[in-house]
């Protein structure tokens, strides 16, 4: 059966040109870039080319790009590194309720170490309020970390405006741009961003590669201690093939940005309109226009997300959900709860994220299949418009908690 992959926010297939670069390094360039002899110097050129490609992609200087082992590592480094460096100055950090767990769990970890964290709420569309941000900044605030675009609902935060506010207050500003990179234009100079996290596997590059942009002059403690790699800031022998591949992927992402995002957006809007027109009792999560070009997030009333995913998988379609049943926990997505959805509704969420290889026929097939699947699952459900979820009678539910 033909597979239709609609989970590009989770990961993307590797681009053939990226694969070519990566395998060439693996096959031919086994040197350690720290070595001074020919094998080392030869592979070092690829590492530095990649750094240049990534710097160019976000309008940074090459000396501001540091490679990491993942987007999560970049996030951890930004938060912990800035917190530790500035703890004598203050112990207050501002972030949002809808961040990726790489940010949230890192902040929770710092809270145990005496840091204070403000988690800004968001509105029904997932946008933070600039007034809330202004009001939250204190004398002892050392860091503001607000994601560029949300991974679940696709909402794009007002990063430029946030950057202006934060800069005025003399506070350091980090943004997790893992989902935004390659999908929307990013210019760190224009945005007043001090630190920015990105990841390779979301832009048709390999897994296990990330990078942190650190603006020149921003002082940060190291997260990984050891050798002198990455200008003495991130120890560990370089993942040379991964770095070269990341550079290529970033280059391609930027070259094709306009064309790709237009393609994604056309299909996104077709999917949203098709589903909203053909399926009753469905809501679109996230902002109608300030959203990633490839992100579609729905909540279907009366049914549960994992059963939608399983049914889609049987029809050849790969998607994801913020339902508790897919996360291994009992709580539905913190993002869907933060935009004000009741837990029962949040369980019926479905995220479809479109990629550059997705076609119009794929979208038409998905809409067709969804109509059938949703109707079938709703017929099986004990809740409906006459018996809404909040009124349902519950007995013996105690074992859950």
């Amino acid at each position, binding site marked *: 059966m033909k597979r239709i992959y609609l989970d590009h926010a989770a990961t993307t297939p590797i681009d053939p040109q990226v694969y070519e670069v990566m395998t060439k390094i693996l096959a031919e360039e086994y040197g350690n870039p720290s070595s001074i002899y020919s094998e080392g110097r030869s592979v070092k050129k690829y590492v530095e080319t990649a750094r240049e490609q990534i710097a160019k992609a976000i309008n940074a200087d090459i000396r501001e790009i540091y490679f990491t082992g993942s987007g999560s590592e970049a996030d951890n480094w930004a938060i912990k590194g800035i917190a530790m460096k500035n703890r004598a100055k203050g112990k207050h950090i501002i972030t949002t309720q809808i961040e990726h767990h790489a940010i949230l769990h890192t902040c929770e970890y710092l809270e145990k170490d005496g840091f204070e964290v403000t988690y800004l709420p968001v509105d029904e569309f997932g946008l933070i309020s600039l007034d809330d941000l202004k009001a939250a900044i204190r004398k002892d605030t050392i860091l503001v970390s607000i994601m560029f675009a949300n991974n679940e609902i696709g909402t794009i935060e007002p990063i430029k405006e946030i950057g202006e506010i934060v800069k005025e207050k003399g506070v350091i500003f980090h943004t997790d741009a893992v989902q935004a990179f390659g999908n929307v234009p990013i210019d760190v100079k224009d945005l007043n961003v001090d630190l920015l996290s990105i990841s390779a596997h979301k832009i048709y590059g390999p897994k296990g590669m990330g990078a942190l942009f650190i603006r020149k002059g921003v002082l940060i403690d190291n997260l990984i201690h050891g050798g002198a790699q990455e200008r003495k800031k991130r120890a560990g022998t370089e993942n040379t093939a991964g770095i070269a591949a990341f550079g290529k992927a970033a280059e391609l992402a930027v070259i094709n940005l306009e064309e790709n995002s237009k393609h994604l957006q056309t299909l996104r809007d077709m999917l949203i309109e098709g589903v909203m027109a053909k399926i009753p009792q469905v809501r679109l999560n996230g902002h109608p226009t300030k959203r990633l070009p490839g992100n579609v997030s729905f909540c279907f009333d*009366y*049914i*549960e*997300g*994992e*059963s939608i995913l*399983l049914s889609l998988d*049987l029809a050849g379609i790969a998607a994801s959900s913020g*339902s*508790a*049943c*897919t996360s*291994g926990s*009992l709580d*539905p997505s913190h993002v869907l709860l933060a935009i004000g959805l*009741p*837990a*029962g509704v949040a*369980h019926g969420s479905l995220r479809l994220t479109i990629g550059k290889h997705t076609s119009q026929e794929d979208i038409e097939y998905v809409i067709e299949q969804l109509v059938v699947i949703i109707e079938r699952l709703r*017929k*099986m*459900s*004990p*809740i409906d418009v006459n018996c809404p*979820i*909040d009124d*349902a*009678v*519950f*007995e*013996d*539910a105690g*074992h*859950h*908690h």
Partner: protein
Amino acid sequence: MDYTDKVMENFQNPKHVGELSDANGVGQVGSPACGDIMKIFLKIDDDGIIQDASFKTFGCGAAIASSSMATDMIIGMNIEEAAKLKNSEVVEALGGLPNEKIHCSVLAAEAIQAAIDDYKKGATA
């Protein structure tokens, strides 16, 4: 999610879906916050034998498969026997469930007990 073929078969083609119009015992358990609600309908004859059973479930694949399997297992049982159905028997019949999905089978056993209790209330009223 690693589901057995038996689970997938019961999820794809569940048995006994829907409401029994002549049910004389109905039980509903679960919580929307946790993402599972299970409703079981029983048709019990004067000898206390379950003539027919059906379900309606809001939940994941394991919840739907557990409902299908559990209703199938209790048809033909007398209510004393059915009330003692253990969730582990449902799990076994499904060829196993992932650890974090065991609660779905617990829910099925509880929904059956609730439906039998409901019948008993009606029968003695």
